[in-house]
């Protein structure tokens, strides 16, 4: 009954459900706090990232060879944070290429990425005062089928003999096809995948790899804009918070489970309530620990809210155009 549970509780906040949103909120506060700190003129340090230092070298090499620079902003279906970050890095690459009048090629997996990508690269050329040198066909939509896209990009790599390649964003099974094809034509490769399963493939096949959150550090590293540097420091605070939580979890579980995991429990949490263990005490398991239960919300099937029914309500009929 609602009298027992306030509507302010919300479905997601029942039991220990409030923990993940509260944790997310804390991480957001860290980021915003550091963006504000950086805005006040604090000098914040960023360590050296080899993959980003190599961008100038890669574009310079392509210019010397008179070959294009090829970029792929991943296989995202739509324009999300990953694609925006990839395009941020590519706009930096395109700017250097534009200054050297070096041709570029951006291969897009989806139509929204193609549209945004084309505008971003066009803006870069316009800002450099080289709008007339921008070739709209340098940003291409290839295909939105994974392996058709892989075949298309590989074909372009082999035909155009790109001297430098940048693979950044969401990559899946096709990552190695790109990297090995580019390697076979001797291109210098800088890559990064937000999919941790693909990072080893890039490490094996590419010259430089941005691992994990180095990908998101790129904008701050390349531009040193206070907002971006502050955000990066905020990310470090978030990582420290996560590491601290993991450490507390390890200690708490070690104490609670005990050496050899031979402790016995008489009560267990079931359907968001503590009940006596059926059939007497049993050995404690990792699922019974405080930390495990803190981050895993349980639902209460007995919780039913009685609400008035709308008298005008008609169940949706088949064939509706909604």
């Amino acid at each position, binding site marked *: 009954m609602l009298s027992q549970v306030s509507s302010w509780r919300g479905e997601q906040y029942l039991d220990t459900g409030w923990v993940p949103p509260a944790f997310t909120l804390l991480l957001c506060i860290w980021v915003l706090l550091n963006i504000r700190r950086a805005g006040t003129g604090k000098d914040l340090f960023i360590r050296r990232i080899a993959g980003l230092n190599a961008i100038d070298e890669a574009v310079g090499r392509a210019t010397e060879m008179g070959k294009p620079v090829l970029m792929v902003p991943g296989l995202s279906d739509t324009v999300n944070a990953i694609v925006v970050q990839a395009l941020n890095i590519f706009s930096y690459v395109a700017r250097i290429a534009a200054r050297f009048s070096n041709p570029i090629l951006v291969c897009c997996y989806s139509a929204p990425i193609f549209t945004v990508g084309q505008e971003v690269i066009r803006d870069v050329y316009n800002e450099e005062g080289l709008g007339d040198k921008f070739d709209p066909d340098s940003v291409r939509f290839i295909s939105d089928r994974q392996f058709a896209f892989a075949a298309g990009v590989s074909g372009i790599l082999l035909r155009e003999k790109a001297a430098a390649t940048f693979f950044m964003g969401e990559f899946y099974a096709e990552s190695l096809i790109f990297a090995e094809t580019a390697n076979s034509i001797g291109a210098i490769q800088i890559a990064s995948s937000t999919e941790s399963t693909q990072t080893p493939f890039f490490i094996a096949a590419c010259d430089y790899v941005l691992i994990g959150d180095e990908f*998101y550090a790129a904008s701050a590293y390349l531009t040193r804009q206070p907002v971006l540097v502050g955000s990066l420091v905020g990310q470090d605070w978030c990582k420290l918070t996560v590491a601290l939580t993991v450490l507390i979890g390890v200690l708490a579980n070690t104490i609670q489970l005990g050496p050899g995991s031979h402790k016995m429990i008489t009560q267990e949490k079931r359907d968001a309530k503590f009940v006596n263990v059926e059939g007497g005490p049993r050995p404690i398991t990792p699922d019974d620990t405080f930390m495990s239960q803190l981050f895993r919300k349980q639902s209460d099937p007995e919780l039913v809210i009685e609400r008035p029914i709308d008298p005008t309500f008609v169940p949706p009929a088949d064939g509706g155009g909604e």
Partner: protein
Amino acid sequence: MSQLFLQAQPQLNFWNGLNGTTGLWIKILIGLALGVGLIFALMSAPTQTRRPIVAFVTFISGLFYVLYFFFPRPIDRQPGELPLDFVESVSFYIDDAFGVVTDFTAILSGLLLGLGIYSLLHVHVKRIIKAHQNWFFSVVLLVSMFMMTIVGYWDWITRRGEAGASLDDPANWSAINYTKDLMFDGLLQAMDAAMFSIIAFYILSAAYRAFRVRSVEATILLATALIVILSLMGAVEFLWNGMIDGMTGKDPGSVVNNLKLTEISKWLRDTVQGAAIRGIDFGVGIGALAMGLRLWLSLERGTGGGN
């Protein structure tokens, strides 16, 4: 206002209508005209005017998802129920509007697909007209694209309604169904599979380069990879684990059991690799969160190193 978004009761939704009715087509045309008009108005506006509008729309759009995540969601909501208080009214509204808001993305992607196809046509028609090297492949691509579009839609039309149910049995197929099957399952899917299978060879060549003993790190990588590979080879695993069993007399409590190939491999994957991947995933997740915040609050300006 709620009738523009209410999805729980589609019959009350202004934009809803029965398939094929004139009313629904008029609503679709109104929606399309409104959308195109807005886009052109935005395009013709000066940058100084456009920037705050884009920032405002981004903030409102992002705010919706923030509210959806943080605002208390209705507990045990059933169809046709009325909210009990103000909090529930808001939560019901957010709940109903979620489907509509997410549909915006799909509609926008659908509109932009046209631009993608235009890009393909522009690149490949130019190659054909100028008779570039390998121009014939452009002809193949364009013919394939149009053939697949026409045949795909034709096949889809034949499969609609009651008559379409009979097409579950290939005995009732017409020429168009066979053509679509040949083009999609027979050619496209097979070519996808062929591209996928190439990865096996690329893994081999990449592994050869990665596992060369050049440094301490590469040697550790080689050793761990060798253990994992051997643990997956049935005969080797059988012989090695059998030898350990022989030493321990199959005593499950013996510490020597930890030297079994499967145990070492499991430890490497669960403890070493699993922990490293989780660390990377945390970094990526936090990076995406920070990026999302910057985009939502329009703190992310042009970052290509420009002035």
